[in-house]
C-alpha cells in the first residue's frame, strides 16, 4: 500500500506542477512590450550546438522537402553560419503559435524563419534586417478586385499571428490599414496558407493577405489561377530573433552574416532560393540594431519579382501515380514516429491506468480523492493543452534545461497519463462488474487479496473491458496526430508540411488512408483477442 501511495503522490505532484504551468503560460507576455525575460550571456563556442526554430511549412524560408529534409533559404544561411563558427546546426521545427515559449524555455537559440521584425522590435534581440518583405493581397484571377479600396465589404483571410494580421490589427498598424480592415466584411484567420486558398476556391473568402515572398511562391504553384494586387498593404523586414538580452549570440551570428555578405556567399544563397530581389543585408549590415534604436524601418522599396517560382516548379512535377508514391514515401518516415507514439503510449498507459484504478479503489479516502481529481482533470481538459503543459512546464516552472529529446518524451508522458485516466475508469467499471460472489468464493478458499485480484478478478475484468479498450485504442491511433501541438514530427505533421510546400491537398488524404489501414489492423487484432477470450462466459 505504501508503495502505491508514494506513486500516487508523485503523480499528484506532477499534476499540480502541470496546473501551475498553465497559470504561468497565461502570465507570459503575449505580444510586444511586456517581455522582461532576460537571458544570461550565452555566447557559443566551437563544437556547441546552434538550434534554429522555424515553421516547417514556410517555403522558401524553411520547409520539409520530398526527402523529408528541412531545407530553405534561412536554413542554408544558418548552416553556413554554423559551418563558419564550428557549431553543430540543429533544425528544430516549431509550432508558430508557440515560438515565444520555445525561445524562452531555451529549446531553441533563435527564430530564423522569414521572421517579421516590424511591430516586434522590443520583443526580441534582433539581427539587422536581411530580407525586405511586404504584405500583399492575392485574389482569384477572375476577381473584380483591383485595388485595396475594392476590398470593402469583402471577406479577407490572413494567417494566425502573421505579419499580415499585425498590419491590419496590430498595435503598430497604420490608421489607413485599420480603416481598411474595418471596411472588410470580415477579417478571418486560418492556420496555414493552404487553408486560405481552399477558402478562396470555395468562395468563402475573396482575398488573402500574405508576405510577398510567400505570395510569389503560391502564385507560381497555383499556375495562373490567382493574381496579386499592385497596391501593397505594408512593407516590412525579416530578421533573426534571439531571446531578449542574448546579445552575445546575436553579435556572433551578425558578424558571420556580414562576412558572408562581404564575400558574396549570402547573395549566392539568396540566388539559389530566388530571393535576390528581396534581400537587403548589404544596405542594413552597418545599421543600428532594431531593439537598441527601435524601428529603423527603412522605407521598403519592395519591387518584388518572382522569387519562389524556381523551387515551386519542382513540387507538382511527375504523374499522379509518381506523386502518390513519393508522398507515401515521405509520410512513411513520419509513420515510424506515429507508431512509436502509439505503442509506447499503450505500453505505459495500460499499467499506469491499472495503478490509478488501484488508487481509486483504495481503502483510504484521501487516495481515492487524489485518483478522482487526477482522472477528472485529465478527462476534462484537452489533450492538446496537457501536451503543452508537459512540454513547456519544466522549463517555465523550474527553468530546467531540457535536451532536444524532451519533445518526444513529453509527447509520450502527455499521451500516457491522458490515456491512463481513461483506462483507469474503464478498468474500474470492469472490476466493479465482476460479481461480488467471485471475491467471496476466493476469500473462503483462502486466497489473499493479491491472489484474488491476479487469478480471479483480473482475467474476468480483461474480458469485460475489451470493447471499451478497443474504442480507446482506435482513438489513440488518430490522436497521435495531436503531437503536432508541440511540433513533434509525426505523420500528420509531415502531411501538413507537404500540403504547404506543394499547395496540394492529396497528402492529407493519403495520411487519412494510412490512419484508416492502421485502424483496420488494430480492429482486427482486437477482434481476435476478444474471440480468444470468449472461451468462458
Amino acid at each position, binding site marked *: 500500500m505504501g508503495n502505491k501511495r508514494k506513486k500516487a503522490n508523485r503523480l499528484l505532484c506532477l499534476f499540480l506542477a502541470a496546473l501551475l504551468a498553465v497559470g504561468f503560460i497565461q502570465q507570459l507576455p503575449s505580444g510586444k512590450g511586456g517581455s522582461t525575460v532576460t537571458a544570461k550571456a550565452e555566447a557559443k563556442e566551437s563544437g556547441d550546438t546552434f538550434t534554429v526554430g522555424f515553421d516547417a511549412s514556410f517555403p522558401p524560408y524553411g520547409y520539409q522537402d520530398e526527402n523529408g529534409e528541412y531545407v530553405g533559404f534561412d536554413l542554408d544561411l544558418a548552416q553556413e553560419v554554423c559551418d563558419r563558427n564550428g557549431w553543430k546546426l540543429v533544425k528544430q521545427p516549431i509550432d508558430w503559435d508557440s515560438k515565444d515559449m520555445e525561445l524562452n524555455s531555451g529549446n531553441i537559440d533563435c527564430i530564423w524563419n522569414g521572421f517579421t521584425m516590424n511591430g516586434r522590435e522590443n520583443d526580441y534581440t534582433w539581427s539587422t534586417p536581411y530580407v525586405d518583405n511586404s504584405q500583399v493581397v492575392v485574389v482569384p484571377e477572375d476577381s473584380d478586385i483591383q485595388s485595396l479600396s475594392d476590398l470593402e465589404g469583402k471577406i479577407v483571410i490572413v494567417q494566425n499571428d502573421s505579419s499580415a494580421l499585425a498590419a491590419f490589427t496590430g498595435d503598430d498598424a497604420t490608421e489607413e490599414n485599420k480603416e481598411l480592415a474595418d471596411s472588410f466584411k470580415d477579417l478571418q484567420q486560418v492556420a496555414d496558407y493552404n487553408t486560405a486558398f481552399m477558402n478562396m476556391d470555395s468562395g468563402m473568402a475573396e482575398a488573402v493577405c500574405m508576405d510577398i515572398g510567400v505570395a510569389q511562391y503560391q502564385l507560381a504553384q497555383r499556375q495562373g489561377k490567382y493574381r496579386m494586387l499592385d497596391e501593397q498593404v505594408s512593407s516590412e523586414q525579416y530578421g533573426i530573433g534571439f531571446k531578449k538580452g542574448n546579445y552575445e549570440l546575436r553579435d556572433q551570428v551578425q558578424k558571420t552574416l556580414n562576412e558572408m555578405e562581404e564575400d558574396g556567399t549570402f547573395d549566392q544563397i539568396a540566388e539559389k532560393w530566388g530571393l535576390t530581389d528581396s534581400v537587403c543585408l548589404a544596405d542594413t549590415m552597418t545599421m543600428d540594431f532594431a531593439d537598441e534604436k527601435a524601428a529603423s524601418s527603412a522605407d521598403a522599396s519592395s519591387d518584388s519579382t518572382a522569387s519562389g517560382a524556381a523551387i515551386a516548379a519542382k513540387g507538382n512535377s511527375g504523374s499522379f501515380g509518381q506523386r502518390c508514391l513519393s508522398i507515401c514515401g515521405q509520410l512513411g518516415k513520419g509513420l515510424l514516429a506515429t507508431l512509436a507514439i502509439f505503442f509506447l503510449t499503450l505500453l505505459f498507459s495500460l499499467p499506469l491506468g491499472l495503478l490509478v484504478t488501484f488508487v481509486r479503489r483504495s481503502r483510504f479516502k484521501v487516495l481515492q480523492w487524489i485518483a478522482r481529481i487526477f482522472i477528472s482533470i485529465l478527462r476534462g481538459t484537452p489533450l492538446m493543452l496537457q501536451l503543452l503543459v508537459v512540454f513547456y512546464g519544466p522549463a517555465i516552472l523550474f527553468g530546467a534545461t531540457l535536451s532536444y529529446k524532451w519533445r518526444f518524451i513529453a509527447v509520450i508522458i502527455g499521451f500516457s497519463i491522458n490515456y491512463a485516466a481513461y483506462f483507469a475508469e474503464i478498468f474500474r467499471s470492469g472490476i466493479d462488474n465482476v*460479481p461480488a*460472489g*467471485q471475491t*467471496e*468464493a*476466493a*476469500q*473462503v*478458499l*483462502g*486466497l*489473499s487479496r493479491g*491472489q484474488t485480484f491476479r*487469478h*480471479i478478478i483480473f*482475467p*474476468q475484468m480483461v*474480458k469485460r473491458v475489451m470493447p471499451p479498450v478497443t474504442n480507446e485504442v482506435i482513438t489513440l491511433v488518430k490522436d497521435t496526430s495531436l503531437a503536432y501541438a508541440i511540433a513533434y514530427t509525426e505523420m500528420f505533421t509531415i502531411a501538413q508540411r507537404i500540403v504547404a510546400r506543394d499547395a496540394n491537398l492529396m497528402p492529407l488524404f493519403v495520411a487519412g488512408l494510412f490512419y484508416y489501414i492502421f485502424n483496420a489492423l488494430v480492429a482486427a487484432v482486437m477482434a481476435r483477442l476478444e474471440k480468444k477470450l470468449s*472461451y*468462458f*462466459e
Partner: protein
Amino acid sequence: MSDMLFKASHLKKSFGETEVLKDITVEVAQGEVVSILGPSGSGKSTFLRCATLLETMDGGSLEYEGKYAVRDEGGKAVYASGDELRKIRQSFGLVFQNFNLFPHYTALKNIMLSPVLTQKRNEEEVRKEAMVLLEKVGLSDKADAYPGQLSGGQKQRVAIARALAMNPKIIFFDEPTSALDPELTAGILRVLKDLAKEKMTMVIVTHEIQFAHDISDRVVFMADGNIIEQGRPQDVIDHPANQRTRDFLNLLTE
C-alpha cells in the same frame, strides 16, 4: 466443551437500524450434521456469512477447533490477526447458493486452484485428488468443461468438490439446492448424504424439510434473528414445541 469443532456464542449483527442476528449460539461437534431451518429473513444466511467470515459480526465470539477467530471483549467482537484468520479459514469450506464457480477456469482448475495456490501443494498430487473428487460427485467426464458449459446441478457438484479439495474440518452449505430444478436437487442431496455417511461435519441451511429430517443429527429453527427451537429432527420437525415452528412447517407441507 473443547471437543466442539465449531462454536458461535451470542452472535449479534445489525445492518443499520435492523438487528438481523440478536443472540445466536450454535455449537457443532466433530462428525455432526446440523440443519438450519427458518422463514426467509430469519437471519440464516447472515449467520452463515458471519460464521465463514464473509460478514463482520458486531458482538459475540467465534471458535474453530478451540481457536478464537472472534473474541468477545466487553460485548464487542474483536477479530484475530490476518495471519491467524488465514489459518482458521483452512478449517472450513462454504458452498454457495449460486455456486460462484470461477467462469474462466475449467471444472478441474476450479478445484485445484486453492490447494495449489494457498496450501502450496504439489500440482500433480492435487490433480489426482481433484479427479477423485470429480468422480465422487459423478463428473469425471466434465473435468475440462468450463462452468458455462455445465448445468446448475453440475455446477453445484463442482462447487462441493472445490470445497472438499481444501480438506476442511467442516463445510457450510448456504441453501445449496434452492437455485436448482427439483430433478437436479436430488443429485445434490445424494452427494450430501454420502458425505454424511463419511462423517463429514456439515452445517446446512435449507428449505428441504424431508431432507433435513433424513440427514440431520440436529435441527436448528431460526426466526427473527433468534434460535426458537433446536433438537433431534424427530422432535423439532415431527413434534415442534413452538407455535412459530409449527406455522412454518405447516406452510411448507401444505
